[in-house]
């Protein structure tokens, strides 16, 4: 059943109830959970530990580890094809969004000393972005 008609920039698939429901469920349950384990828990913990053992002060150490994990997070949102080597997806707006949110999740990770905070924030923010995308699509088409 096609509910909202055609595809849009926010939803690169036909906007049926099933497609939207599945996509929303993915965003609110899986996207942040998987990405925070990969980009914050896996990357930041050893960087923070190495910095501490090397004698770096608390704040510069957190900034460095958070900056590196955010940079990796940004690079992960650029799609590259290897044969031939080319960039297949790059969006400056998405990069700015990922930079802002990535820094926020890193900040949360350091402040809460837990991966749960960034996971909850990431899932919730993604769900909000999808909902806003749907509202904008319904209003402006």
């Amino acid at each position, binding site marked *: 059943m096609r509910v909202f008609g055609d595809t849009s920039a926010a939803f690169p698939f036909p906007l049926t109830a099933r497609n939207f429901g599945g996509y929303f469920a993915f965003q609110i349950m899986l996207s942040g959970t998987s990405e925070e384990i990969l980009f914050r828990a896996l990357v930041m913990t050893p960087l923070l530990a190495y910095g501490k053992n*090397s004698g770096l002060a608390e704040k510069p150490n957190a900034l460095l580890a958070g900056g*590196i994990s955010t940079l990796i997070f940004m690079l992960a949102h650029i799609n590259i094809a290897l044969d031939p080597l080319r960039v297949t997806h790059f969006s400056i707006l998405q990069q700015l969004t990922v930079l802002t949110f990535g820094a926020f999740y890193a900040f949360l990770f350091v402040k809460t000393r837990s991966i749960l905070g960034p996971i909850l924030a990431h899932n919730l923010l993604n769900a909000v972005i999808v909902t806003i995308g749907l509202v904008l699509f319904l209003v402006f088409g």
Partner: protein
Amino acid sequence: MMIKHNWQAVGKIGLLGLVYFFLTRLISEIAFLLAQPMYQPLRAFDPDGSFLYISLHHLWQGLFALLVIPPRNWSCFSACSGFSFRAVSAR
């Protein structure tokens, strides 16, 4: 002397970051490779490819990331990174 030591540490952390960049990229690529054959027989549930393929990819990606994290890092974040609750509450 201290400043030189710190810059060496920053350089080493940068190199470590580069290693982790390639590791995250490798995990993501392997997750895509494993999600593809799983998605094909389940395609009837998501014929437009709107959520199932990316969900399977993220499941594999999270699972591999969990497997790669050394077990000692599960509980050592506070101890290993040098942050303390007391330091935060004292501000």
